[in-house]
């Protein structure tokens, strides 16, 4: 009874307080951008500054989303899973805003030029691939779609986000002229987050293998 009551309280805490807070916090960068844009805070080249700002936050939200699973395992913080979808969708939202800023502000719907960029400029090609791979993930982000696909298939599909994480970092790295320090910091973080999964999965496989061996009937010695 007591356990059920604590669980219900925790549920209320997550639903009514934590989730709205995370939602509001995720909107804060956008609000900040609007503030900067309306007060001249974006400097002499506001279009470039806006584009950079949105691109960086898209990458940051991707990284936050990719950090949920490792954080749950390392810190035993299971309930973090409740925020993963929202954060992932915010990552997509910032990617979309970044892309919109490029199409509308930077190129002003010059589709010929945009297409030329996508096919000719490697860093834009890579960025576009990262974006396109997110679309099926967003489309299958509802509970109903998870049920329809089944857990295993859904999980496999959503591993595409790893590719987008790498694409985001590569896109940034290839864009800068000479000072690659910042993209390298992001690259290191993504490498740690993806590396963690590889190490964790292989250790689990190993442990499972050992477990299977242990539980198998002991071979008879001849």
């Amino acid at each position, binding site marked *: 009874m007591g356990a059920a009551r604590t669980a219900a309280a925790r549920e209320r805490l997550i639903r009514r307080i934590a989730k709205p807070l995370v939602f509001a916090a995720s909107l804060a960068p956008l609000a900040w951008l609007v503030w900067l844009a309306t007060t001249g805070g974006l400097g002499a*080249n506001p279009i470039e500054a806006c584009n950079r700002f949105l691109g960086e936050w898209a990458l940051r939200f991707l990284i936050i989303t990719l950090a949920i699973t490792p954080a749950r395992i390392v810190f035993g913080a299971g309930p973090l899973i409740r925020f993963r979808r929202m954060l992932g969708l915010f990552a997509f939202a910032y990617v979309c805003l970044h892309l919109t800023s490029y199409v509308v502000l930077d190129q002003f719907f010059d589709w010929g030029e945009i297409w030329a960029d996508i096919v000719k400029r490697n860093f834009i090609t890579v960025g576009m691939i990262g974006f396109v791979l997110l679309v099926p993930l967003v489309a299958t982000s509802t509970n109903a779609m998870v049920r329809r696909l089944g857990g295993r298939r859904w999980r496999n599909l959503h591993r595409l986000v790893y590719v987008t994480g790498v694409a985001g970092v590569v896109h940034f790295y*290839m864009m800068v002229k000479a000072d690659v*320090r910042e993209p390298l910091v992001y690259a290191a973080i993504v490498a740690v987050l993806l590396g963690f999964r590889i190490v964790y999965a292989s250790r689990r496989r190993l442990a499972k293998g050992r477990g299977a061996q242990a539980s198998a009937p002991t071979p008879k010695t001849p």
Partner: protein
Amino acid sequence: MMIKRRHQSDVRSSEITPKDVYMERRRFMAAGAGALLFGAVGATPAAAARTKLDGVVQGLYQADEEWTPYDDITSYNNFYEFGTGKDDPIRYSRFFNPSPWSVTIDGAVEKPGTYTIEDILKPHALEERVYRLRCVERWSMVVPWVGFPLADLLKRFAPTSGAKYVAFETLLDPERMPGQKLGVLEWPYVEGLTIDEAMHPLTLLAVGLYGETMPNQNGAPLRLVVPWKYGFKSIKSIVRISLVEKQPPTSWNISTPREYGFYSNVNPEVDHPRWTQATERRIGDFFRRPTLMFNGYAEDVANLYAGMDLVKNY
């Protein structure tokens, strides 16, 4: 002589009183904080001062376009010696003191030597020239420079027949130029021109802009301005000018030879490997505009490259 302003509609930053007042206050506070932090008692930060240049006459070249506002020209800079962010130069050059300054002129000249900036400037009448500045990153500005033709300076030191190219060098001093502590480029920054390019009447040695001494973030006290080439060719804070026989190395070419050639003439038909150079955004504009061949100076300079393959010699 007063500088005649061509565009009455332009509002000088100094005319916008409130901002000017608070910028001054900020500068004052920054100077105070700097003095506290670095113990630079009595040292007036040179960057804060805006000094009017006397005796500036209207030069030959006047781009008939709206000038980019002073605040934009001085707050959006590529000057990696002070950091790689666009707002790093204005921030980190604040306490840079370009005085005393000397320039070495050597190589294939009859009168080599190291001269104080005062001796360098003394015989030259300063003129105002309004040039378009096209950055390789696809943005552009219109800048009213103050300076004198490089050719006039070079002639004083009597180049010999061995002078086929001119090599330039920026100050190397990581203590005063903190960006040089980073390995993003090889330091010191070096640039070069052919002797014909250097002797061209458009090629300017600039000591100021908007009728005032050169702000630190724009390359005080002496910089090159070659308006038909991408901005990085116009080397800042020059300490050495060498007349040489062979094509000298240039910083961005050393860094990424595939992307930045020796010539780096503005050319809408030759793409940068990572972006098209066909269009540019003028600072302050929303829409991109087409980039002009040789940045609109084709009439003056195209003959320098007659018969040259501009795709190969990018």
